[in-house]
């Protein structure tokens, strides 16, 4: 690992000015489970590491019916899946934070880091997208919000400008009769990277017979996490008893642009997109029915 400067600011303002001053090769550090690994392997050469775990705003979890859920960018996975309110209301988020790495990794890894790292395989990103989460960003030129489906721009690239920090993630309070689920296919049972991942959320009508709206997002089948609006739209207004789930799966497959790599061939991945989309939707619908 190449030598680097390390600072740990205590306030948001200090963190932003350190990030801004650090220039091109400055990086924010949350859990470090991506950043440190990449620095050690020489894949990411960083001159200034700004540890943002000491900043209050990046460590909050707040939840209310009115404002929904806000999770600080550095909050590690274990705090998220152990939070009673989140467990009750955001099962689709717990799905992903409880499978990232293993217990050790979950003690450090954050949702914010998962999103900023912008891996096509990032599990947390998928849950954020299907739940309609937005990223709260602050930089030298002020604060702004970015929809999580627009956040990742290329493998390892995100929409943040130099000097900008991801402060927190806002997840809206689910509508009534809503359900969500994320699942992935991996060769072993833990500590693995999604060969394909699929997240799905649905909102059912009052009778719980048909689908009012749906969101579907795919991992590891494109250069970025892939929000498939068409697949969700195909479900709108359809009855849950119909073959709409199959149709949505076909839309998902059409949107996917997987490649061959050591984790699987493109063909196999396409096949998995179909299988997992159906499974994700099935569970999401069940959860909505049980609301």
């Amino acid at each position, binding site marked *: 690992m190449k030598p680097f400067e390390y600072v740990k600011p205590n306030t948001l303002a200090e963190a932003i000015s350190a990030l801004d001053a650090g220039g091109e090769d400055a990086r924010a550090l949350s859990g470090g489970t991506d950043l440190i690994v990449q620095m050690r*392997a020489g894949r990411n050469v960083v001159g200034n590491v700004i540890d943002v775990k000491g900043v209050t705003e990046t460590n909050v979890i707040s939840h209310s019916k009115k404002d929904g859920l806000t999770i600080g960018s550095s909050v590690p996975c274990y705090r998220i899946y152990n939070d009673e309110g989140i467990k009750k209301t955001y099962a689709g988020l717990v799905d992903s934070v409880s499978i990232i790495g293993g217990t050790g990794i979950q003690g450090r890894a954050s949702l914010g880091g998962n999103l900023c790292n912008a891996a096509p395989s990032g599990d947390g990103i998928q849950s954020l997208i299907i739940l309609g989460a937005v990223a709260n960003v602050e930089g030298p030129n002020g604060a702004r919000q970015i929809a999580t489906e627009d956040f990742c721009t290329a493998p390892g690239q995100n929409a943040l400008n130099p000097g900008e920090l991801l402060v927190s993630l806002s997840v809206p309070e689910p509508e009534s009769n809503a359900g969500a689920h994320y699942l992935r*296919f991996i*060769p*072993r*049972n*833990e500590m*693995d990277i999604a060969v394909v991942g699929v997240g799905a959320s649905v909102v059912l009508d009052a009778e719980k017979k048909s689908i009012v709206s749906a969101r579907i997002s795919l991992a590891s089948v494109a250069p970025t996490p892939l929000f498939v609006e068409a697949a969700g739209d195909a479900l709108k207004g359809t009855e849950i008893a119909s073959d709409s789930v199959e149709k949505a799966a076909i839309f998902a497959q059409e949107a996917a642009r997987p490649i061959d790599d050591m984790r699987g061939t493109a063909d196999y991945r396409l*096949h998995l997109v179909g*299988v997992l989309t159906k499974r994700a939707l099935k569970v999401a619908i069940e959860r909505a029915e049980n609301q």
Partner: protein
Amino acid sequence: MISYNVIGQPIVRSDGFEKVTGRAQYTGDLKLPGMLWGKVLRSPFAHARIIRVDTSRAVGLPGVHAVLTGDDTRGVRYGRRLFDVPPLAEERVLFAGERVAAVAAESMEIAQNAIDLIEVEYDPLPAIADPLESMKGDAFLLHPDVNDYVGLPKKLEKVSNVFVTNTWGKGELDTGFAQADHILERTYTTPLVHQAYLEPHSCVVFIDEDQRIQIWAANKAPFALRQQLAAAIGVDEDRIRLNPTYIGGDFGGKGSPMDVPLVYFLALHSKRPVRMVMDYVEEFTAANPRHPSVTTVRSGVLNDGTLTAWEARIIFNSGAYGGFKPGVNLGGARDVAGPYKIPHTFVEAIQVYTNSVPGGHMRGPGEPQGIFAGESHLDEIARILGIDPLEFRLKNLVGEGDVTATGSLYRDVKAKETLEAASMAARYGSPLAMNVGRGMAMGARAPGGGETHVGVIFQKDGTVVARTPILDQGTGTYTTVNQVVAEELGLSSDKVQIIPWNTDAVSFDTGIGGSRGTRVASQAAYAAAQNAKQELLRAASEIRGWDPSNLVLKDNKVYKGNTEDYIDFDFVVQNCGFDIQGTSGIEDREQLTVTAFCAQIAEVAVDVETGQIKLLRFTSAHDVGQVLNPIGHQGQINGGVVQGIGYALMEELEVEDGRVSNVTFGDYKIPTMADIPELRTVLVQSKNGVGPYNIKGIGENTNTAVAAAIANAVEDAIGVRVYSLPITAEKVLAALRESNV
């Protein structure tokens, strides 16, 4: 049953405390005054001519003490038996990862910077990764001079990339096939896999003021290494001393000289001690992984399930060199024919040079490859005949007086008992859910023989020191020696301390390998303890003037016959005026007439939409003698099974354009705890074993049949067979689709 006090007890490991407290010193921990770091520049090409190596900028870097290229080690070749490996490539590189230049510098960073400053101009050449291509008559030769290499078992009539062939068999194949009602031919492949030990290869070489070559190395056969190095660099063995060090895991992979010859040259040129530790990227690309194989089995069988003929050819991809296997070929290949009474057989194992990572030993060298093919094949025949695989095996397995397919005759044969025990424990035959299946496979292995020595020295404080030239690489040999010595001297295990010897201390030790550790070390420890005990009794008799022929050692006391008259043994040690000790040298290389059977049964569930396999349960039955330590014994079983699960389901070093592409443990998958199902073990007790305690080996047998059992369970679950390891979800799905068209 004989009752013991220490033997058979769950004694904690002799090296456990040092290891868990971090005090155990491994080679990489060693610090010598003035020690330098060695680093290697490796070829990015699978095959290329080296046009030019420019080291001038590296030489000029402050802190650099030596920069070597193939010119500095020209003509030197080394290996475990076949000497075909150069410390640094000369005219050509033969695999991606081959060493091209090396540096010794004052820090790892400087060494790395120096490596980065070396410029190499290559002329890339066509490369052959596939052994089947490499075997063809028109393939270019990787080693045109193979017939001149030291250690080649048999000169080749016509030089080719196939450099060694071994065969086994009996009867007349034609007769056997003529009798058969059915003939089945299938081909099986197994991948390149890494042993995945925690500690990478590491060594320190230091030429001291007496010109002795002092070495510490992650190598489990120090005396063999001494011979190999002496022969390679042309010095007397006496000049070389291997010093004891802890070895952080082996699984067969820590028997090669690896970087020791090169680091010797770095130490020679820099006139400093030099340490080299491979990183794991280097391990994955350039150590000595398990050989990939392509095996074709052709069998003949009668309608009633009697096997009449068995023909098998195993092609091992040796990679660019053959120097990392002590037998030049892998003898375990013969197990493709298994412990079955087949009258007409022929098994052929060949080693082929290709432009890929040189293969080495890993847990049962040749056996997991052969058994995957053989036991997969047996299951398929049974299913074709409509006979249950268990019944089919029981019909063909050897019993007392039967000769195995490749001609071995054993006594006290427990093959059927072992399989039946596994089947009971696995509840074989009980109903299964949809897409769930059970599959079985068998193996047999007798521990190898060898030579070792043990010294037992009584200490004045009432404890005992046991010396051994064996370096415990994690399998528990120190604990074995401890228990034997404690047992024979009537002590508790905590009174015995193990201190390893360096190679000056005794004449030879074969080293760990071939499941020989317990067989050889337990006999040597027993003999040394007996000798030490006689010395103690003699000393006691001298002090007391007792008749030496009638003394008894019990509870730390020497008793006069059956009387109550005794003398404390520490009093004897303190007052006899000389050191009380016993030594032993054991040479036991005999081919054993007893073997150890293993039967394993996997239970899997298959997700037919994704092809994913979930292992639900795994049962192992072992035919054992006296178990010296139940914790260590069970540890070998569980560890072997887990490693076998990895081989079966996920492990593979993937080679793209001649280069290993998955070079981290993120990409090279080995099982995690979450992948381990319930493991069941049954032990079938046998009275016949080796040595004073009737022991059998357990280190390798546990690992060799696992993949075949899982492949067979998959077929039982969903009716399709995967012929290549690892059995990935994608392969299962492809097989399912094929079966549906």
